[in-house]
């Protein structure tokens, strides 16, 4: 692997260490807010935990995993050494320093502003600087991904870039576009407020800038899972990718339609009118298209695999698929969760329905299911698949891997299904202690306990995951050489530049962002909102 193993492993272990810690916090939080923990957990500790859990799961696990996987793809799919490895390591350490700064600030109780930061609530500047460093590290990664693909294309003129790398670079480009929002919010508004340079903050503008990042960031997390769907799962199933073109189109559609839609996170906000809210709702409906296309293409790819193994009839191919392989099992489980989670997403987008579920447990359930469920289960499967290549050792048995995946699926369904239901009942978010004496709230209690049970199962699964990877480092079995990436049924010979690069798409993204966010941001320049006084989590 041309000596990039340590680089990848370093990123992955940081990601999974954060994941394991955050999983423990998550269960503690669920216990505290349930009837079983009703007298425990001061709000100070609870919301500190919520902040830590959110930062670890949403910023550390994701960013470091995606960087590690990206380096892996750049080396293996392009079959060449990683350019700028010194920069890659510099980025890694920058990110680690950032994580340490942020975690220390949270632990000191000076950053209890949740991972979505709620200005004018303002944390210690070390918290924000820590996160800025993590983002800066990821930008280094983005540049390296783009450079790696550009170098490969120069050496292979006219050839279609391998789909796995195309997807990874699409993700990097999307990340560069989307981080502009949160970077602007932090650099121009929140950090100056935190330093005491300004005493008020324009909250409408900060929410709008943050929303710019808010949707594409979840697709940043999602795209590696889809990369696995298209390039790893068909091979693991023993088949071929149904259509390489559809794969490319999917990643392009994500790049184009996940960016100009952030306002659906501000659907209930007063700082925008329904004109632009409708436009971004319309654009959001289009971001369902790549997922729906993927469901077809991957199912068709699996059908090929099943029929090659002797499956007959309309559905007989399902039975013959090699479900004993972790990547195949994870894909199947991910699709089930994607079905539920995707449906929830469509509900959230319709603003009439959004009014019923905004800021209720439905939202919490939705993103735990779709991100914690479909996406993270694929992170597990990817790790299991590539760890032998990184360590040179083989899993002794796939049984603990399968068990871990099943526990994750079961735990996620048991945790999130009651949560969806409670959200529809009106249970609201971010509560340290519910008043279980109130008759309405008392009725919710049993379901909260069921969710807690799901969370405990998830914690067991999380620990098992870490164990499965850790033991692999000392496994006596050497890694078995086998091909990793799927071939398409009809491998592309030539593709248009539009399907091999992002020049055209960047221009279209620019047009979309100007149309979708131009006026919403311009209105704050023309007529700023009256500033709200900064509330600092450090006593002056």
């Amino acid at each position: 692997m041309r000596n990039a193993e340590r680089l990848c492993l370093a990123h992955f272990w940081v990601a999974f260490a954060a994941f394991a810690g955050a999983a423990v916090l998550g269960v503690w939080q669920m216990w505290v807010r349930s009837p079983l923990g009703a007298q425990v957990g001061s709000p100070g500790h609870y919301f500190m935990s919520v902040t830590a859990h959110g930062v670890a799961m949403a910023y550390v696990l994701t960013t470091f995993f995606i960087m590690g996987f990206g380096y892996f793809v750049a080396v293996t799919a392009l079959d060449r050494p990683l350019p700028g490895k010194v920069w890659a390591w510099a980025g890694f350490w920058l990110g680690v320093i950032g994580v340490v700064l942020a975690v220390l600030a949270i632990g000191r109780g000076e950053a209890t502003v949740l991972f979505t930061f709620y200005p004018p609530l303002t944390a210690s500047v070390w918290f924000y600087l820590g996160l800025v460093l993590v983002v800066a590290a990821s930008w280094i990664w983005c540049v390296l991904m783009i450079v790696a693909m550009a170098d490969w294309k120069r050496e292979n003129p006219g050839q279609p870039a391998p789909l796995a790398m195309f997807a990874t670079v699409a993700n990097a480009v999307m990340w560069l576009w989307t981080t502009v929002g949160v970077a602007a919010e932090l650099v121009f508004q929140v950090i100056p407020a935190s330093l005491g340079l300004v005493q008020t903050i324009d909250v409408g503008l900060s929410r709008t800038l943050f929303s710019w990042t808010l949707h594409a960031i979840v697709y940043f997390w999602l795209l590696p899972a889809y990369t696995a769907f298209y390039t790893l799962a068909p091979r693991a199933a023993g088949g071929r990718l149904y259509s390489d073109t559809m794969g490319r189109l999917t990643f392009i559609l994500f790049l184009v339609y996940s960016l100009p839609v952030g306002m659906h996170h501000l659907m209930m906000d007063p700082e925008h009118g329904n004109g632009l809210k409708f436009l971004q709702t319309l654009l959001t409906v289009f971001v369902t298209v790549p997922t729906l296309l993927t469901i077809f293409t991957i199912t068709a790819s699996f059908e090929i695999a099943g029929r090659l193994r002797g499956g007959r009839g309309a559905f007989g191919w399902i039975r013959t698929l090699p479900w004993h392989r972790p990547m195949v099992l994870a894909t199947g489980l991910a699709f089930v969760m994607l079905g539920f989670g995707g449906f929830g997403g469509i509900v959230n987008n319709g603003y009439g329905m959004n009014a019923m579920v905004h800021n209720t447990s439905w939202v919490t359930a939705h993103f735990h299911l779709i991100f914690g469920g479909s996406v993270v289960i694929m992170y597990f499967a990817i790790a299991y698949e590539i760890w032998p290549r990184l360590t040179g050792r083989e899993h002794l048995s796939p049984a603990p891997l399968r068990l871990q995946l099943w526990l994750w699926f079961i735990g996620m369904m048991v945790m999130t299904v009651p949560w969806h239901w409670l959200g529809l009942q009106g249970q609201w978010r971010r509560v340290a202690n519910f008043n279980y004496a109130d008759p309405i709230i008392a009725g919710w209690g049993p379901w909260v306990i069921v969710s807690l049970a799901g969370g405990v199962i998830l914690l067991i699964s999380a620990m098992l995951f870490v164990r499965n990877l850790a033991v692999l480092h000392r496994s006596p079995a050497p890694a078995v050489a086998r091909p990793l990436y799927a071939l398409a049924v009809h491998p592309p010979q030539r593709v248009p530049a539009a399907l091999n690069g992002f020049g055209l798409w960047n221009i279209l993204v620019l047009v979309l962002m100007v149309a979708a966010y131009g006026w919403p941001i311009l209105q704050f320049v023309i007529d700023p909102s009256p500033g709200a006084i900064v509330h600092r989590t450090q006593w002056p």
Partner: protein
Amino acid sequence: MTEHRQQPISEPHVLDQPWRLWSSIAIGGILLLGILLGVVIIPVVQGRGAGLDAYTAICRALGILPGSPAQPQPSTQFPATPVSQVVWTADVLQILSNADPRRGYEKVQEVCVSCHGEKGDSVGPDFPHLAGQSGAAIYKQLYDYRTGSRTNPMMTDVAKALDEKAIADVAAYYAAQPKRNLNPRSLGESPPNIVQLVELGDPNRNIPPCAACHRAGAAGPIETPILSEQRTEYLVAQLKAYASGERRNDVYGRMRTIASQLTDAEINGLAAYYRAGFK
């Protein structure tokens, strides 16, 4: 049998033209459709139902004018005697951060020391300790005494004799005085129901935890006073004054609403808890 049609493989830039054309048309078309529907058609149609002309409806949809494109705006009525004249603007916060504790010390010697002590340790149970109190809290109370939002036979005249800068200087001086840092466990009890009220509040009665505002770093209202080490009698008197409505300078009745729901035992318990130095 596999059949591959034999056809010449086109160069990428030739393959590209239809992509550039059709993707631009598709995305441009979707954008135009979205803008037309969201900014023009929906507001205008909704506006008709609300008796609004097209221009007003579109401006409302864009947020240029207030109001919904689907409903007429309610008319607003205003009376008002505000409960506090203090406005935490950037200017006021600047005045506070630029205040001079040494000038404050001179004023304190003249005016405050006979009741509140030189170091902020007051001379009697009716006078609150001010040592290490939040500067913003002292500022607000003095300002409210000046404007009459809060009344006290002695403090009203004292405050009226001070100008805004002097108030800030005095506040800064006392804020800089060290607290005694008592050892709470040896001085006071922490009965479970009081600790619960301080740490968890009472959701049944809408009472947030005292610590949610009154603990350092809680990020609550700017003018929140520090309660730790305060005189028991003073705390009891203030809570009772809030409960009866006699003291009304808490913005939006935050303390009046809370205090009116506390029992006498809770008021006494909380006062003893904070007196002992618990934070």
